[in-house]
């Protein structure tokens, strides 16, 4: 369903020392540094799997997601999702995937949430019956009926994030990418979001790949974790395997911290 083989991506970053003199110098000659965001990243995900993609800040998680969504073009490597190369057949590819970027919003700020949903319906050309069925179901599970007429700007973060998730599922995607879906949420909203993702995966068989820093997300949701650090895949295995190598009685948070330490990332 998803395969990545030897994906490489580098960015060129302008660098200079602090202070006025260095800033003035940078006007005339810039120094660039090449940052290897991803080096030889390979993994594959089967249909219906739920995978936690973890790693410290700056490890390359979001870069990987953006490549899989067709937004970024890697320097080299092969990526096949639903039989397509995302960045080459972007439009056909994105029709079959759903994406939530936890730190951004896809809802129109000043209009009721419902208007945003209807726009998405028309953009994906979802037929009326499918749309109504999906909407009714999602709204009921996520308990959103009260806020559909509210403009997105007046929603709390928890309400908004639930709407974001609905928005990315209205077109029946078979793969869902969640980039930090629980960031900043309170306990109740986190639990609601987790339960929902689990149910989605079970009932519809949607393949889910999520990145998070919240280890409870991982514990609650995924059987399999892929650990990335400094642009390289360091570990790809089950949560049980990870537990086995960790100190006795450690919670998920401590296990991951131990891993980061072990790989010096």
């Amino acid at each position, binding site marked *: 369903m998803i395969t990545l083989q030897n994906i490489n991506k580098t960015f060129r970053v302008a660098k200079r020392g602090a202070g006025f003199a260095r800033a003035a110098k940078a006007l005339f000659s810039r120094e660039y540094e090449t940052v290897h965001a991803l080096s030889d990243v390979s993994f594959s995900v089967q249909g219906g799997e739920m995978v936690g993609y973890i790693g410290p800040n700056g490890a390359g998680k979001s870069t990987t997601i953006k490549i899989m969504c067709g937004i970024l073009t890697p320097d080299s490597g092969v990526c096949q999702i639903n039989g397509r190369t995302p960045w080459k057949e972007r439009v056909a590819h994105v029709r079959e995937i759903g994406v939530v970027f936890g730190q951004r919003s896809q809802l129109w700020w000043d209009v009721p949430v419902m208007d945003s949903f209807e726009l998405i319906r028309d953009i994906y050309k979802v037929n009326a019956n499918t749309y109504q069925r999906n909407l009714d179901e999602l709204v009921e599970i996520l308990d959103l009926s009260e806020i559909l007429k509210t403009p997105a700007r007046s929603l709390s973060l928890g309400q908004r994030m639930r709407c974001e998730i609905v928005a990315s599922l209205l077109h029946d995607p078979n793969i869902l990418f969640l980039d*930090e879906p629980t960031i900043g949420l309170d306990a109740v909203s986190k639990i609601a979001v987790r339960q929902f993702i689990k149910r989605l995966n079970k009932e519809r068989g949607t393949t889910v790949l999520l990145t998070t820093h919240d280890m409870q997300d991982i514990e609650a949701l995924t059987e399999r974790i892929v650990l990335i650090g400094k642009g390289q895949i360091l570990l790809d295995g089950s949560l049980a395997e990870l537990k086995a190598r960790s100190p006795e009685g450690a919670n998920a948070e401590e296990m991951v911290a131990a891993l980061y330490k072990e790989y010096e990332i």
Partner: protein
Amino acid sequence: MIYLKPYKALFRIRFTNSLQYRAAAVAGLVTQFVWGFMYILAFAAFYNSNPAAFPMTLQQTVSYVWMQQAFIAVFFIWMYENSIFEAVESGQVAYEMVRPMDLYGRWFTMTTANRLSRAVLRCIPILIVAFILPEPYRLVLGGGAIKHVLFLLSMILSLCVVVSFSMLIYISAFHTVNSMGTRIVVGVAGDFFAGGYIPIPFFPDFLRTVIELSPFGAMQNMPLLIFNGYLTGNAIARGMLLQVFWIAVLVLAGRLWMRRSLKKVIVQGG
């Protein structure tokens, strides 16, 4: 038609979204009135000293200014769709790229919708007042139905030239950290050469010939000069053909540049 459905939906939401900002519309309206009066009074003073020194009659100049102020949102380059710059600079554009839609078409639709909704809110009060003002400060119709149809067609073409030109400025935002400088410089200079401050017939001859052939001459210049009766017959046909030519060139250039830019795009943060 099914192909156009996403664009229609996007047009609708962008149009209604802009319509709801009432205070902005009122503020804009007041500005356009004051600006229009100021211009007309200044021109009237020049005409008083020597009416023969101008290529257009005062009446024609007055009509030019009122129509320009009424449809300012259609004609002026600087009336950008700012949400596009914000989307590019904040990385929000990532969400626009995960939609099964052509990004050029998406931006073109949004800009057009935004401009039209702003024009609809502003044009009616300005036109009403401009029609009931005393001579010679009045907006004058006349010239027959065909002239008005040509004016309307040319205004639509002019909107397309302005939008496809501003697309180049949106795309340039992919290549700069902050697009404010480009926006202001290109906007002010572009609108100057388009006849936004002084009508193009008032320019010195050598400059005028160059501008009339450039994309700037294909913007507000054409419909406004058709409306006030300065252009007639073959000059209208030639001008409208030139408008079509520039739309084709600008759209093609924008699409090519966008395709190249998207290959190199880096969405930072998050």
